[in-house]
């Protein structure tokens, strides 16, 4: 051991070796050749599947391993195979393909100036679509900002998503929220905050309420690995375990939080699933690019919650194939090779190849499905554009800016609303543009 000299001669800095600060650094930067051989990828089917009511103390290995179902041979293996029928698998593939087509079009729309901002989930579709399919339609979800796949899987009308992204006069959220911060109570989808990890302890609170009421619905929340650094995530784990809440805490580890790699959230020392162990929460680490494993793990956790057996923390080990958002350029901080070298492949390709392998799908049908998805998104986009695009005047009426701050408008907001309308009349003395539409 490196003891510090004691006694009167001891002074600051005389420690041997000198104390040094470790600042994490990702393995690869722009231009670097990428080698992911340090990532352990166990054989599909190698992990046992414990009973859903297992004591977390007896399943510590699941926080460090990797649950995988789809193998290199494109077949499903082992006890985690959810044994879904081909029709369900095709539905899953369809939702993932639709999510990808939607992302492509919305990203392009932002580049064309139709809105201010967009975020893709490319490569992470299984973590929302497949997981969501394992829940009941009225289980409450508290998503982060990259789970558009849940809304698509739950049948939320796509035109509502686009109206929200355009902040147009059709936007049910009245143009108040940054694009993609959806909300749909009808689809048991909580309003997305934009502040990170705040939704995780809220999901626990919702689940506690469901338990207080003797309900049968459970809650599930999604958070990025970077945001697990927030204190809210700790609060969520603690409240979940203290009250044995029927909740699933999904951590999507996509390796990158804008330009900060997962090491800045602690990934150099342990897995994110292992965070659950200290709280006595059942914790599963799952191949997040394996749609069948994602489904199976979420189903296991949902069964556990419904059996009053407690919360589950799931780490979906995945990769953010695109930038953080339309405001981000990952070529400035990571090697472009990473996406191609990622050892767990692409979730859409893996499910497609599985369906082909079992004789339930073919390239022609895939091509046709992709084309239809792109056409549907295009057609829906055109419809949404009838309601306007961001900054072109077809927004909600001015007075709506002051509504919903409180249930009723107090005097000070009424005065400010009057002021806003006066300003508008000063700006447009001849009457409002667009014939007053939207004003």
């Amino acid at each position, binding site marked *: 051991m490196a003891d510090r000299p004691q006694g009167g001669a001891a002074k600051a800095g005389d420690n041997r070796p000198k104390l040094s600060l470790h600042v994490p650094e990702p393995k690869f930067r722009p231009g670097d050749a990428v080698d992911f051989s340090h990532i352990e990828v166990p054989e599909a089917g190698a992990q046992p599947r414990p009973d859903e009511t297992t004591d977390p103390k007896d399943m510590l290995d699941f926080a460090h391993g990797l649950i995988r179902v789809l193998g290199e041979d494109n077949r499903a293996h082992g006890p985690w195979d959810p044994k879904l029928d081909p029709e369900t698998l095709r539905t899953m593939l369809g939702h993932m393909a639709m999510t990808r087509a939607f992302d492509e079009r919305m990203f392009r729309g932002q580049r064309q100036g139709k809105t201010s901002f967009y975020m893709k989930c490319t490569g992470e579709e299984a973590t929302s679509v497949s997981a969501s399919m394992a829940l009941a339609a009225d289980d*409450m979800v*508290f998503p982060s900002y990259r789970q558009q796949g849940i809304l698509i899987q739950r049948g939320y009308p796509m035109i509502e998503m686009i109206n929200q992204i355009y902040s147009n006069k059709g936007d*049910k*959220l*009245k143009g*108040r*929220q940054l694009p993609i*911060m959806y*909300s*749909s*109570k009808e689809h048991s989808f*909580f*309003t997305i*905050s934009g*502040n990170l990890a*705040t939704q*995780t*302890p*809220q*999901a*626990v*609170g*919702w*689940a*506690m*309420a*469901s*338990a*207080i*009421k003797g309900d049968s619905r459970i*809650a599930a929340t999604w958070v990025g690995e970077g945001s697990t650094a927030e*204190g*809210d995530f*700790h*609060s*969520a784990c*603690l*409240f979940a375990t*203290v009250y044995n809440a029927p909740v699933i805490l999904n951590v999507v580890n996509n390796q990158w939080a804008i330009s900060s790699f997962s090491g800045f959230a602690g990934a150099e020392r342990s897995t994110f699933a292992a965070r659950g162990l200290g709280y006595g929460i059942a914790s599963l680490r799952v191949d997040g690019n394996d749609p069948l494993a994602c489904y199976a793990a979420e189903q296991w956790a949902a069964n556990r919650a419904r059996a009053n057996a407690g919360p589950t923390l799931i780490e979906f080990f995945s990769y953010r194939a695109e930038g953080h958002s339309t405001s981000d350029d990952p070529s400035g901080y990571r090697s472009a090779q990473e996406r191609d070298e990622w050892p767990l492949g692409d979730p859409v390709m893996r499910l497609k190849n599985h369906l082909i392998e079992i004789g339930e799908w073919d390239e022609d049908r895939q091509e046709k499905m992709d084309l239809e998805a792109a056409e549907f998104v295009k057609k829906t986009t055109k419809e949404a554009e009838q309601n306007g695009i961001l900054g072109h005047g077809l927004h909600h009426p001015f007075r709506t800016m002051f509504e*919903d*701050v*409180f*249930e009723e408008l*107090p*005097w*000070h907001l009424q005065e400010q609303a009057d002021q806003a309308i006066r300003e508008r009349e000063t700006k447009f003395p001849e009457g409002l543009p667009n014939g007053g539409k939207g004003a």
Partner: protein
Amino acid sequence: MSDTATKTAPAAEQGTERRLNMIEAINDALDVTMGRDDNIVIMGEDVGYFGGVFRCTAGLQEKYGKTRVFDTPISECGIIAAAVGMGAYGLRPVPEIQFADYIYPGLDQLISEAARLRYRSAAEYTAPITVRSPFGGGIFGGQTHSQSPEAIFAHVSGLKTVIPATPYDAKGLLISAIEDNDPVIFFEPKRIYNGPFSGYYDKPVEPWKRFDASVVPEGHYKIPLGKARYATEGDELTILAYGTMVHVVEAVCREKGVEADIVDLRTIVPVDIETIEESVKKTGRCLIVHEATRTAGFGAELSALVTERCFYHLEAPVERVTGFDTPYPHSLEWAYFPGPIRIGEALDKILAE
């Protein structure tokens, strides 16, 4: 006289002679609302079996069960966040933060979440939460058990902030807060839990039962949020205050023979502008008193409102008496506290103009 402000506690006139201190009145409000609505749950540090460090939730767990009144981890973030989630489910949570000084770990959940759920979701989701928290000094609590952070919450759009000054008001305002569909911060002036305070710390506390404002009727009644009360009426000046300071200024005015309209605001957001204007236009002089630190305190907002709206009625500059802009000291608590000397000096100044 505006009909928005209540002059006296009606119960005293009705003669329902049940006298409670503020703790008992708060406990009664919680009991009455919980009995009427199964969706009301109480949670917080030490609120369950023990009944709260100030005893405000005493007996409620025994009466309503452990799933409606329960202890929480020492995590203000988690307490507020869980309440937000429960509110989204359809419950009506009443979390307690043991001291207002400890509310800061929950601020993001209050400011960015509870206060904005209705707005950001276009009213799909709301946060019908009442956060109760003892606040203010005068109990030798040092800098971590004495703060008055009301201005922080007043600055946030989407939060209502309520501060009662009597047992009668505490019950009626708390029932209104709990039944309100927006998030409410309910600060309880802990110095006056057991009796009003004259500002003289070396005099014994006079228990609430000697005062009419401690007559608290049984059952359900509400005092609307956003409506002030005239604690006293007079023509010489208007004093705007809330919580503990209502009683201190009342005592100082009595001592100095000053006839003042003492307006107990009761709610600072939304503030009762009608009553403020009515009184200041009548008296032409306005003193604002709060215990919180001075700079950017709620007194600054009140001063601006009075100046903007009553300027041509004013015969003297608006004055503020507040705590100093230091942390709340332990040994020098009474040098910090805006007591009779500071208030008296301000009264002399404003009345001499």
